[in-house]
């Protein structure tokens, strides 16, 4: 087992589609508002509109559909479970289907479709954000959106910096863990088979060296930062600064159209 191969951390797929090139701030705000739009919608027609919008988004993003399907898998069982619950317990409306003791009513079907659409839309829109935006861009976007909170003494810059350091060190630690695992395997440790208590005890042989090296890295990094004169966020500049473009304006326009459509359907 090669740890760095079997462990996929993050799902970002680089690209240069319209969605990739949007400012991270616009994408974050859009997804946030879109989720509220989903909860504002109360009809299957509304959900079909929101879903077709997402399908267009998937096509524009130029990311293979299989990646989105992978994002749905963790909640697939939950969706299935909810569908079965609604189909079997909701006895309102007309009787549509009957086989032995199984009776399915029209309202049950309606509820099941409603919930499936809602869950699918929510999960796919979140996947789309993480598939098309790199974690570092998202962190920077979050920092700039939350920047006003500095006024109430929240250390937004420090939090964002810690997040960037974390993201930067995850691959390093993965490599490190991989090396330690191989070293312990060469000494005869077994992590894949055997009873669970044995595997947990074997894990300790990885975790202790990992902890010691992690703290060593933290210490070295702190010394390096201090010797380079790090003194917090005040007056710090960036190598790359993203700016709003026509793309972000277009996104705002698209959202307004969606909002008006959803509100008018709701009013019907």
């Amino acid at each position, binding site marked *: 087992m090669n*740890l760095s191969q079997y*462990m996929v*951390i*993050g*799902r970002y797929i680089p690209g240069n589609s319209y969605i990739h090139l949007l400012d991270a701030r616009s994408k974050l705000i859009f997804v946030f508002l879109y*989720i*509220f739009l989903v*909860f504002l919608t109360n009809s299957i027609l509304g959900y079909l509109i929101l879903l077709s919008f997402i399908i267009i988004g998937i096509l524009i993003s130029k990311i293979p559909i299989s990646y989105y399907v992978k*994002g749905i898998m*963790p*909640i697939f*069982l*939950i969706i299935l479970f*909810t569908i079965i*619950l*609604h189909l079997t*317990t*909701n006895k309102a409306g007309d009787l549509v289907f009957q086989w032995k003791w199984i009776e399915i009513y029209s309202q049950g079907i309606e*509820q099941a479709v409603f919930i499936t659409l*809602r*869950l699918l839309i*929510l*999960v796919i829109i*979140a996947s789309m954000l993480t598939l098309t935006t790199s*974690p570092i861009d*998202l962190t920077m976007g979050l920092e700039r959106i939350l920047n006003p909170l500095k006024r109430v003494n929240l250390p937004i810059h*420090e*939090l964002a*910096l*810690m*997040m960037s*350091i*974390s*993201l930067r*060190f*995850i691959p390093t*630690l*993965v490599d490190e*863990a991989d090396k330690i695992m191989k070293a312990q395997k060469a000494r005869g440790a077994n992590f894949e088979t055997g009873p*669970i208590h044995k*595997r*947990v*005890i074997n*894990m*300790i042989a990885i*975790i*202790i060296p*990992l*902890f*010691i090296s*992690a*703290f060593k*890295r*933290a*210490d070295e*990094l*702190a*010394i390096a*930062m*201090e010797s380079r004169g790090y003194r917090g966020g005040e007056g710090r500049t960036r190598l790359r600064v993203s700016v709003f473009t026509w793309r972000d304006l277009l996104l705002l326009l698209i959202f307004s159209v969606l909002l008006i459509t959803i509100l008018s359907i709701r009013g019907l």
Partner: protein
Amino acid sequence: MNNRIRIMTEIAIIAALAVLLNAIKVYEAPFGGSVSLVMVPIFLLAFRRGIVPAIIAGALTGTIKIILGAYIVHPVQFLLDYPVAFALLGFAGIVKINKNLSLKQKSIYLTIGIIFASSLRLLSHFVSGVIWFGQYAPENMNVYLYSLLYNLYYLVPEMIISIIVSIFIINKIPNFFIREDN
């Protein structure tokens, strides 16, 4: 040495370690719940640096999990299941483990801290489950019982494994995880 910068880098690296351990499944239960050592780094930081840095490390872990791809089914659910649930683990630092304690006392203190913090995490997942599953479940279903059982189902094994591993670590390398300020 500027202690503030050192604490910041430790928080960041501990969060990275938690995200890494989160991906190594000790065992996988059916229906999605999986058991990993994700909580251990946050607990150990809580014993080393106290409650506040550990809370920040936990919140970072949760936020990074979202950025790397999480499932969101409800606006409140996503806050409670990720940043809040992991931030609450920092409360393991209510117990103070110092050098003068015997091996047995250290283990008992550590267990109390971990059980307390895990219960807070359970509470967060439980409330989240009631809120979001309540939106989707049929009206006659007992959402409270379902949410409690579902979360206990993977959190209890995860907590037990975390306690065992933490006791091992704190006895092997005690100097790393004992509060320096007392």
